[in-house]
């Protein structure tokens, strides 16, 4: 059986994060000129929150690496040859 230690705290933090995303969403949606059904706002908030988490992961990893190189926008798969 998996340990549930800390699960409540984690759920609460995830709830806070989603709520924060949900609260700011109407402003973001309006600025982006999107038309979002009111019934779909919560689902959209969940998806945006997941993307925020992905960005946070990268931010942490890149800071750790102190990587100041140019962004690799031009993708050339011949790099290995």
């Amino acid at each position, binding site marked *: 059986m998996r340990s549930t230690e800390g699960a409540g705290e984690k759920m609460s933090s995830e709830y806070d994060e989603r709520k924060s995303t949900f609260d700011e969403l109407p402003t973001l949606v309006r600025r982006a000129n999107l*038309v979002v059904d009111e019934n779909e706002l919560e689902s959209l908030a969940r*998806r*945006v929150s997941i993307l925020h988490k992905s960005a946070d992961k990268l931010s942490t990893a*890149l800071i750790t690496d102190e990587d100041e190189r140019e*962004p*690799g*926008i031009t*993708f050339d798969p011949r790099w290995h040859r």
Partner: protein
Amino acid sequence: MTHPEVASVTEASSLLSERTISPVELVERCLSRISSHDEQLQAMVRVFDEEAGESARRAEKEISDGSYRGPLHGVPVAIKDVYDIEGYPTLAGSEVRRGHLANRDSEIVLRLKSAGAIIVGKTVTHEFATGMTSPPARNPWDLTRNPSGSSGGSAAALAADFCLGSTGTDTAGSIRAPASVNGVVGLKPTFGRVSKRGVVPLSWSLDHAGPFAKTAQDAALILETIAGYDPGDNSSLREPTPRYSQQLEGDLRGLKIGVSKDFGLGKIEHFVDQALDRAIRTFKDLGAQVDEVDAPFPDIALAAHSLILASEAAAYHRETIRSMPSRYQRGTRLFLQAGSLIPATDYLMAQQTRHSLRSEISKVFEDYDCLLGATVPTVASPVDKSKVSIAGEWEDITSAYTRLAASSNFLGLPSISVPCGFESSLPLGFQLVAKPLDEATLLRVAHNFQEVTDYHLARPQLG
């Protein structure tokens, strides 16, 4: 029919070239299979009965006249409905594309037609290739299950013998995952190896076009037909195309395979683990050196992949997601709207991550010729479920079908899925990944495996 068992491009081309069988017979057989079974399978969005018949008669005459074009001449194929075919709509599974009409062939379709292949129809895709279940298509091994996606229609159509080869696109596993759960071979080439001109994009720096086939040998024949530089695709590589089908026979002695069953990216089912163990034993018997390696792909690759995918998709759909949001299916709409809200800085950070991970993965290929792991962590999932249980934990289907495959898209690495077993009569597949432009090694390793195993010969029984 004279040869009811013809099931591969290799078998068909041999019989066609010596005029033992006619393209008309082959095409009629495929159209008959579609007519009998597609009501259940729902893998096709359009069937070219008349056009395919006409092309088959023309191919028959050309072959009789001594103008045999090569191994795809007279061979029936199916095309995912994100590829343009001149004179027909490319609907990409979406109401948004209603009224579209392609005014020229996509590059791959052009090359297939030039090689004499006969297009029997267009196959179902998940809307704009954004998802991994391909409704309404079903899995031919169990009609209560999905064929995965987004190229689910192409994989299901091939497994059901509606064609002898088909095409897909792969942005996060959309060729390899359907290949795995439908029991066929699926090849995602190196980024830029195969042109995407005339293919509806999902995410231009992650998208790859490639073939489905019954065998690695067939995949080699199709790849060498469709690969090669195309000035019409600005990501196309100016690289010569090897004759892959001539490089399959070397044995595996001296070849080094690095094994990471889950690529360090989450759990896999015990039966997938066991199938991989059997495959490892086979490769060792074939003379390969097989070593366990540390997780080659860090999970930040998946985080960066998801940001790039959603940003680029939102950019491509930036006008229609605002002008006609209700024409999108709910899941696609939410995906694109969420992508529209990603800050540019996050997208750039994701590209920066890609830049740094490229050099890390290159070190792995200094020691190993290819990597081996699972394609997907389980079997095909039921059509009415959005989550699957994997090793006791519930997971979203999209995540389950993509997490072991998407790193190859992120890094542009060639990768192939090959049938390697069954669980409760449902197919399983393994995935091989190689360094850029080394499709030849993937095909040779897969071909050697298929020479001594028979998983790829099993066929689903349709009512």
